[in-house]
C-alpha cells in the first residue's frame, strides 16, 4: 500500500509519518501530483493558517488534484478546514469537498483560545474511522477555528459544538491530531489504513 502525505508546507508533518510508521505503514511526503493521484491512501495534514495553506496548495497546482481524488483521503486539523467550502481565517475559498464555512470558535470569557489540549468526541454517525471507539476516548486538539457540525460524524465542544470528524464519500477528516492522541489516535489512523 502506498500512502501519500501531502506536503502542505506547515510545520510538524513528520509526526504523521512517524505515527504511520509505528503502525507498520510507510508513507511519502510529497507535492507531486502523480504520486498523490496514484497513492492508495492520501493524507492532507496541516498546521498553520488557512489562507496561507490554500496559497501553498494553489502554488503547487494541487487544488484540482485533491478535488479529483477517488481513493480514501484523510484530512487532519487544518486539513479538515481546507476540505470545507471556505474559511473565515483569512477569508479564503477552500477545497469545497465538505459543505460549510469554517469560523472562529466562539468561547465565553472563562475558556481559552486556541482550544489546546485533550478533549472527547461524541460519535453521532456510523463511520469506519470510529470503529472500536465509543466516545470515552480523548483526543489532542490545537485550533482556534472550526467547521460546523452539519456534516460531522463526531462532535466535540469548546464553548460551542463543532465538527471533530467529518465525512463525505471518500473524503474524511478529523479536527484533532490522531498522530498526537496516543492509543485513541493510533486507532483512528489504523481504521483509516484498513478502511
Amino acid at each position, binding site marked *: 500500500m502506498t500512502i501519500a502525505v501531502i506536503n502542505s508546507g*506547515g*510545520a*510538524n508533518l513528520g509526526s504523521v509519518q512517524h505515527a504511520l510508521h509505528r503502525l507498520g505503514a510507510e508513507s511519502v511526503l510529497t507535492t507531486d501530483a502523480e504520486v498523490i493521484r496514484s497513492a492508495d491512501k492520501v493524507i492532507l495534514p496541516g498546521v498553520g493558517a488557512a489562507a496561507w495553506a490554500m496559497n501553498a496548495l494553489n502554488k503547487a497546482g494541487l487544488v484540482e488534484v485533491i478535488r479529483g481524488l477517488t481513493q480514501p483521503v484523510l484530512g487532519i486539523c487544518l486539513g479538515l478546514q481546507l476540505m470545507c467550502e471556505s474559511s473565515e481565517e483569512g477569508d479564503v475559498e477552500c477545497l469545497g469537498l465538505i459543505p460549510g464555512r469554517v469560523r472562529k470558535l466562539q468561547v465565553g470569557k472563562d475558556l481559552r483560545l486556541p482550544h489546546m*489540549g*485533550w478533549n472527547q468526541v461524541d460519535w453521532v454517525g456510523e463511520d469506519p474511522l470510529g470503529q472500536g471507539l465509543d466516545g470515552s476516548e480523548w483526543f489532542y486538539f*490545537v485550533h*482556534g477555528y472550526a467547521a460546523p457540525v452539519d456534516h460531522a460524524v463526531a462532535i466535540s465542544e469548546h464553548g460551542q459544538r463543532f465538527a471533530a470528524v467529518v465525512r463525505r464519500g471518500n473524503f474524511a477528516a478529523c479536527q484533532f491530531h490522531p*498522530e498526537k492522541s496516543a492509543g485513541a489516535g493510533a486507532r483512528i489512523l489504523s481504521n483509516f489504513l484498513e478502511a
Partner: protein
Amino acid sequence: MVAVRLIPCLDVRDGRVVKGVRFRNHRDMGDIVDLAHRYRDAGADELVFYDISASPQKRSVDIAWVERVAEAIDIPFCVAGGIRDVETARAVLHAGADKISVNSPALERPALIGELADAFGSQCVVAGIDSIRENDRWRVRQYTGDPDNMVDPRRDTMSWAEEVQRLGAGEIVLNCMDADGVREGYDIEQLKTVRTTCKVPLIASGGAGSREHFLQAFREADVDGALAATVFHSGQIAIPELKDWLRGHGVVVRN
C-alpha cells in the same frame, strides 16, 4: 470539556535528562527516549524538554534528540532552549516537536515571538517566563539555566506576560522560581494574578510536592496545565494515581 494537562518537564543537558534544585546541582535522571516513553505510558498529557545548557552557551537546541523523541512517542511535546530565530524553530518543529518555547531569547529580542507566530501560528509558540519575587512584585529573570550567568532583564512579570500575548504567544508557562524544586506548592498567588490578564492557556511551573498542590493550582488559579519534574522523576507521585485522585475531586482529566 477540555481536560487539564499534567506535564512532566524534562531538563536536558548534553542529551541526558537532569534535575536540579532551585536551578542548581543537577543530577542525571536517565535517557530522554526512555523517560519520554515512561511518561507517555503513564498517561502524561504532554512533555516539555528544556535544553538548559543551550541558552547560556549561546547555542540552539540539539535537533538529533528531538527527532528521536518524535519517532518514539505519540503525545504532544514542546522544546525549549536557545531557539532565537525562525530557522532554528523550523528545524525543531520539522524534527517533530509540536511547540517551541522561548524564554531568554525573547527577552533579548521580543519581536522573535511575533516572527515565530507569523511563521508557524500562535499555537506553536509558548512563552516561558522565569519569575522571582523582588520586594512586593514579581520580576523576570533571564539565562536561569546557568545561575552564574543569570541576568535581570529589568522587566515586571505582569507586564511581560501581557506583552508576550500581544506579540502572539499562544501559551504561557509561568515558572515561579521561589517555589521551584522545593516541593512546597505552586505559587498560587502569582498564578492567580497572571491568570487575570492571561487569555491564552496558562501552565503552572515550579513547586509541586503533593497531589494537593496540583488540585490547588487547577481549582484556585484556574491554570490549564501543571508542569512538574522532581515529583514525577523521583516516583513520589505517579501520574495514573494523581489523575484518579484529581478526578475524584471534580477535576476533568484524561483517562
